[in-house]
């Protein structure tokens, strides 16, 4: 009946401070399908994009970390809802990136469930990890968790969506903001996920998503003086060494999540939240 409609191809941009700009560098890298055709021209994020992302993440930190646990839980749940609504898009992007339909369906479902899992932790992990400390003087003393600040995440290379979600969720549910470098070879879902975040009341700057080359940007993640923790999920011993060395410039927390099976139930737990938290202990006299 109708003639074949010419589809509108999607432009994949980066997600920075709640907006979708192109990389400031104007560079791109082609993402090819299995048959060699170009799926999309991805932004090849630059050092400057990264720097701008950290600025956005830092300025979002005060508000996000001060938001109530209940609100953060609501927003994570909202992300899950939005992802559910765009289920098919993500499945097709995963398939486009070369995995089977069956696996793609499973991955999207697991990603949604993971968000709900962490949404539920928002107002509970504090209760698990906090303590009132019975000091031997007339003081009330308690220890609570606080977000460590801006977290850099080098997302897993081989898990386009689930690995990404599994690393972002525990970081932001704990009140941190983050800058994420998506899987270099499987970047499509990351940018679409940014659209989901954008539609889910996640304040701008809380999550900043870049696409680009790990070899080019890894050092920036490790060395930036205004990043408080760096999470990395791939790389050999040499890479891990470089990250650690550079992280020492500002005594960054370094969290290695290499060789993790992100589809496993074991890859979700509140200890992953606590890894990007600081323990704060407060003393106050008990008197009149």
């Amino acid at each position: 009946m109708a003639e074949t409609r010419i589809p509108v191809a999607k432009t994949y941009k980066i997600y920075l401070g709640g907006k979708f700009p192109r990389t400031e560098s104007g560079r791109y890298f082609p993402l090819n399908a299995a048959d060699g055709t170009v799926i999309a021209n991805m932004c090849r994020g630059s050092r400057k994009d990264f720097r701008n992302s950290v600025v956005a993440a830092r300025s979002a930190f005060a508000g996000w970390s001060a938001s109530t646990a209940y609100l953060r839980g609501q927003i994570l749940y909202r992300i899950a809802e939005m992802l559910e609504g765009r289920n098919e898009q993500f499945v097709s992007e995963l398939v486009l990136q070369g995995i089977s339909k069956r696996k793609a369906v499973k991955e999207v479902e697991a990603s949604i469930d993971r968000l709900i899992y962490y949404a539920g932790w928002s107002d509970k992990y504090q209760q698990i990890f906090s303590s009132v400390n019975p000091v031997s003087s007339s003081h009330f003393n308690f220890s609570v968790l606080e977000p460590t600040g801006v977290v850099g995440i080098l997302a897993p290379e081989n898990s386009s969506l689930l690995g990404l979600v599994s690393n972002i969720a525990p970081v932001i549910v704990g009140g941190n903001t983050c800058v994420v470098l998506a899987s270099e070879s499987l970047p499509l879902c990351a940018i679409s996920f940014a659209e989901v975040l954008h539609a889910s009341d996640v304040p701008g700057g809380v999550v900043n998503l870049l696409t680009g080359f790990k070899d080019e940007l890894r050092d920036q993640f490790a060395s930036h003086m205004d990043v408080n923790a760096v999470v990395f999920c791939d790389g050999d011993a040499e890479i891990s060494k470089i990250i650690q060395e550079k992280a020492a410039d500002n005594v960054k927390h370094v969290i290695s999540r290499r060789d993790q099976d992100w589809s496993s139930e074991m890859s979700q737990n509140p200890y992953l939240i606590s890894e990007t938290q600081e323990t704060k202990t407060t003393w106050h006299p008990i008197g009149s």
Partner: protein
Amino acid sequence: MSTDSTKLAFNDGWQYAPAPESTDHIQIDDHYGLFINGEFVAPEIDRYFESINPATEKPLSNIALASEKDVDRAVKAARKAYTGVWSKMSGADRGKYLFRIARIMQERAREFATIESLDGGKPIRESRDIDIPLAAAHFFYYAGWADKLEYAFPARTPVSLGVVGQIIPWNFPLLMAAWKIAPALACGNTVVLKPAETTSLTAMKLAEVFRDAGLPPGVVNIVTGAGPTGAAIVNHLDVNKVAFTGSTEVGKIIQRSLAGTDKKYTLELGGKAANIIFADAAIDEAVEGIVNGIFFNQGHVCCAGSRLLVQESVADEVVRKLRDRMETLIIGDPLDKNTDIGAINSAGQLETIESYLSIGQAEGAEMYQSDCSVPDQGYWCRPTIFTGVSQSNRIVQEEIFGPVLAIQTFRTLEEGLTKANNTPYGLSGGVWTDKGSKVFKMTQKIRAGVIWANTFNKFDPTSPFGGYKESGVGREGGMHGLGAYLKLEA
């Protein structure tokens, strides 16, 4: 408002006669070897360094300088004790050893306090009332955890790490040893510990306690020396975890050295804490908190309240009261029971502090020192405050690690908070206000690991300690301190 006509007089009239702690009950050997595998042994290479009394500059003893080979011997002993004995022992039994250690420390408390003050220069009142009792309390606290670890980590099985290398500073020698060793042993690890080179003596006395407590050989090994000895521990391939307390500079070197290894680490580093006084505070108690914050232990405290932020409307009153209070501080012989401020720990540290006094004056700040006399021999620094300083001054930004306070003013809560957080450090902070909701706002917003509200420089074994940002990684003390010495299996 400060007027000469109403200045209080503290330096005339009735004075306190010297009240020195006797030293006839203590025994310091001429030479100390290394404590490896339950025995005091000579170093492989016959090298010793002098430990001096910083209050007199006279030598106290000669301490073995551990080489890489000695460190290797110590690590091997620790590994053997770990696989052969300690990792197989029940938590309850490990706990019994720790309880026993705590008790012996209590019994020998006076001796420990005296030696700590002789070797490190801190006032006997502090070593007697704070360092030594707290050190014993740490062993007592962690002793009880040894058979209860699984209760601290829901849904996880805690497993010991193996051999732990620990490097401690000179400001609280025995207390830092206790902070490090007690949780490590409670969690089932064995230890190689290096005390700071200027303060090795109480660590060697602690070794005697371990021996007398019957602690199995090799469970704790103590190697003495300076930086290279510490580096040998950090870089030893058979060490599973490194715990370090000291400067941020060295902490970064250690973090870099550990890059690419699977060693866990905790770092407890420097600080430049803001002590924030609001106009609605109990001012007299706040002044005590300022004094305790910066003059405790000669200011050799990583969490010292070295930046005073005082709200403008009470700034004159606070400074005036602080000056009067400073006149009552007694500086001198660390062994005198009335001494408030003892000797600076070493010639090198005194040089550092004095260089900052020059820097502060060159930066245009006004320096005030209390009017007390100091002995001719030894290393001394009178209590010092700088007024008229600003955020851009080095004496505001850099850790001095001495009895030197930089005083700034602020007008609004936001301004105070911004200044407080405007630092790469984040170890501690203080806030003084009588208004409850403001206490919570401030304690939440200060980016630091330990916040004292309407108090300062309080420590307890149950209370986690450690910093944000460049002040470190990990926590020591309390339940949270256990995590540093365990891996958690699902």
